[in-house]
């Protein structure tokens, strides 16, 4: 093989590896309580002590977002999923402790839940978020991010404002907790309870993310209605 050919092969190999490593990676998110949660938590609340304790342990949580160009998998750090401390467990419940899968280019999102012995896939789509992009920017870990807001429906049909900062420099349509639908990865997300912020991102080859469409597929509203009906049947919730 001539010197030229060897150099060309080496160049192709290097470029290929570079593009592959830039097409996948892992983003780490840490969490803290949102100002709305802290301000709205009253001592009159029946579960004040429990929520306060959970809030104080949110900073111990870590979430990983594994991604490539076709799929993302977001979940709590494995060690924390098996944490025995009840306050940390409740903090994880507050910031969510079940995995989210986002599929591209379809934009489908599935939250995998085990409930009463059954497996559920709670489904929605990236296009469900009606994002409004603002001029405000924020620098997160050296990346310039743009602000976007969207209203999502709460459990009592109220509108909850969600604030996201996404980074056009990172052209992946993913984010924490299954949030997506923006022209860049969401590095900061704030809802009425928790703030998720990226603390580290590594572009590298990752193991293939496997996702099986196994389980009972329900919409968020459909699952919520089902759980409410169980609560009514078991202990009369909503009857009085």
């Amino acid at each position, binding site marked *: 093989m001539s010197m030229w050919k060897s150099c060309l092969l080496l160049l192709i190999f290097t470029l290929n590896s570079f593009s592959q490593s830039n097409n996948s990676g892992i983003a780490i998110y840490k969490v803290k309580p949102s100002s709305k949660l802290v301000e709205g938590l009253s001592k009159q609340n029946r579960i004040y002590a429990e929520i306060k304790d959970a809030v104080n342990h949110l900073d111990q949580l870590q979430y990983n977002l594994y991604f490539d160009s076709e799929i993302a998998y977001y979940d709590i750090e494995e060690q924390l999923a098996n944490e025995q401390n009840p306050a940390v467990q409740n903090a994880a419940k*507050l910031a969510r402790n*079940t995995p989210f899968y986002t599929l591209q280019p379809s934009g489908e999102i599935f939250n995998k*839940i085990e*409930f009463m012995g059954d497996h559920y896939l709670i489904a929605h789509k990236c296009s469900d978020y009606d994002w409004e992009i603002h001029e405000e920017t924020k620098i997160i870990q050296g990346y310039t991010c743009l602000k976007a807001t969207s209203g999502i429906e709460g*459990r009592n049909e109220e509108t909850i404002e969600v604030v996201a900062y996404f980074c056009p420099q990172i052209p992946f349509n993913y984010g924490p907790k299954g949030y997506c639908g923006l022209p860049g990865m969401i590095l900061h997300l704030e809802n009425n309870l928790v703030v998720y912020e990226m603390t580290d991102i590594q572009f590298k080859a990752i193991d293939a993310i496997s996702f099986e469409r196994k389980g009972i597929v329900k919409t968020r509203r459909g*699952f919520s209605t089902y759980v409410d009906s169980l*609560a009514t049947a078991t202990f009369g*919730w909503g009857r*009085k």
Partner: protein
Amino acid sequence: MKKACSILLLGSVFITFSSFISFNNDEDLFGEEYCEETAAALYESFSQYYSDAEAYRMSNGYYQDCLEWENEL
């Protein structure tokens, strides 16, 4: 006269016994109602912070424990 007394005595025993049973049933009903009401209120509170599934699991856990405590009393 003796017969009348016996009927009166039997009658009062019956009334006392029925009242006792009825009183016990009321107690059970009160306990169950208390557990239901508290669990429903907890479900409402938990679901403001946790997922629906988690809110149900936690309030149902409380409800089952509450019924057990009431049965032990």
